[in-house]
């Protein structure tokens, strides 16, 4: 049992305070777990706030619970958010999935999660979550971050020839067993009925062969274009270790370069696929 950090202590205080005052009926946070990842915790009584922790094992993105009906039924929600999780919540707010009035955001100043630190932490720009109701933790002493490296992984793939890329993705996507863990963990994949479950017509072949796998991953990638906040959860939970994050990153890079758009940086933004400009680039259109 590790000693309780001052960050965890102030987090527990903020959670207990929210529950005592009635500002929230439940606090969604992290608690100790046997595995490497902290478990999600749903705290409904002030005395239970002692269960909450925050340390580098808290890398899951809790925003995924906000769109779930069974969670919304619990009452007004308070949620513990890192800056990166807040980006996903901003997308949910922008898409009117949740209302800001129904949410109490307990921000945590985070100096990187994961052992070793996650890749996304090495170029984090949102260590200090902005726009939360309360923020706990000392201003972080961030390890040097390099936003220029944000797209380094996919740039390496882009440099390959087309045949090499095809060989690479055939190998990667061929591994997919269509468990849809990527979809379940994604805070932004909240459709009540996913396109892959629609059968008249059957847009995506459901058996795990390459043709269906390609269609599924393209469909998912495009549904997340301009929405994905690169939280990396899909890649983390993939049992087949498919580098799914790079599909999201590729589309994030595209909307960044073409439309100057970065998803989740604020709740007021207009998504690239709901907006347009007469001057949009159109390379290759005849």
């Amino acid at each position, binding site marked *: 049992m590790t000693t309780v950090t001052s960050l965890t202590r102030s987090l527990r205080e903020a959670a207990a305070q929210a529950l005592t005052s009635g500002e929230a009926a439940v606090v969604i946070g992290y608690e100790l777990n046997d595995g490497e990842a902290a478990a999600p915790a749903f705290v409904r009584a002030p005395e239970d706030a002692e269960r909450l922790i925050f340390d580098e094992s808290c890398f899951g993105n809790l925003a995924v619970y906000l769109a779930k009906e069974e969670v919304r039924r619990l009452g007004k929600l308070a949620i513990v958010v890192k800056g990166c999780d807040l980006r996903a919540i901003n997308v949910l707010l922008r898409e009117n999935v949740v209302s800001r009035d129904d949410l109490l955001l307990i921000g945590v100043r985070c100096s990187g999660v994961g052992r070793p630190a996650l890749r996304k932490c090495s170029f984090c720009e949102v260590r200090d979550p902005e726009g939360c109701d309360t923020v706990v933790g000392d201003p972080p002493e961030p390890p040097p971050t390099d936003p220029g490296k944000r797209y380094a992984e*996919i740039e390496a*793939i*882009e440099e*390959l020839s*087309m*045949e*090499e*890329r*095809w*060989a*690479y*993705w*055939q190998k990667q*996507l*061929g*591994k997919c067993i269509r468990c849809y863990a990527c979809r379940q963990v994604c805070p932004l994949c909240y459709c009540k009925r996913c*396109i892959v479950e629609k059968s008249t*017509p059957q*847009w*995506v*072949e459901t*058996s*795990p*062969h*390459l*043709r269906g796998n*390609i*269609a599924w991953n*393209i*469909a998912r*990638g*495009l549904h997340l*274009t301009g929405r994905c906040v690169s939280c990396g959860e899909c890649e983390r939970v993939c049992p087949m270790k498919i580098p799914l994050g790079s*599909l999201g990153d*590729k*589309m994030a890079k*595209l*909307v960044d370069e073409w*439309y100057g758009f970065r998803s989740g940086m604020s709740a007021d933004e207009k998504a*690239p*696929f709901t907006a*347009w*400009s*007469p001057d*949009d*680039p*159109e*390379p*290759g*259109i*005849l």
Partner: protein
Amino acid sequence: MSSYKQASEDASGWQPRIVAFLCNWCSYAGADLAGVSRFEYPTNVRIIRVPCSGRVDPMFVLKSFERGADMVLVSGCHPGDCHYTTGNYHARRKLLALREMMSFLGIDPRRFKMSWVSAAEGSKWSAVIRQITDEARSLGPFESFPTFTLQEVKK
């Protein structure tokens, strides 16, 4: 009359299959005008009329490839001329994202084409089809999509 067809006939008899999604208001009328004006163009193109290029979901394109299309074309009104004001702007963002995704995965992006053809551009329509049919012919059969099999997963 049949000069174009003779010149483009492949030795093996293989002909590219091109699926074209045309917006009702511009490109479909443009293709109609090409016919009425008796402009010649290859018969490799299968036209599917849609209300607007913005109606074309990327899944339509993928499905066409899965079912054996060698090339897919989406054609709509010129920017600024959409019957529904902005449908083609949305199509442009959405479908170019698909093409970029295809390219990233190593699926030849030259298999997917977009064009702006107005109702007055019968000659442009026939030129576009001549151009992309020639390109489809030189690219050869698009085997990646239809030939995915379970065997590839087993290894």
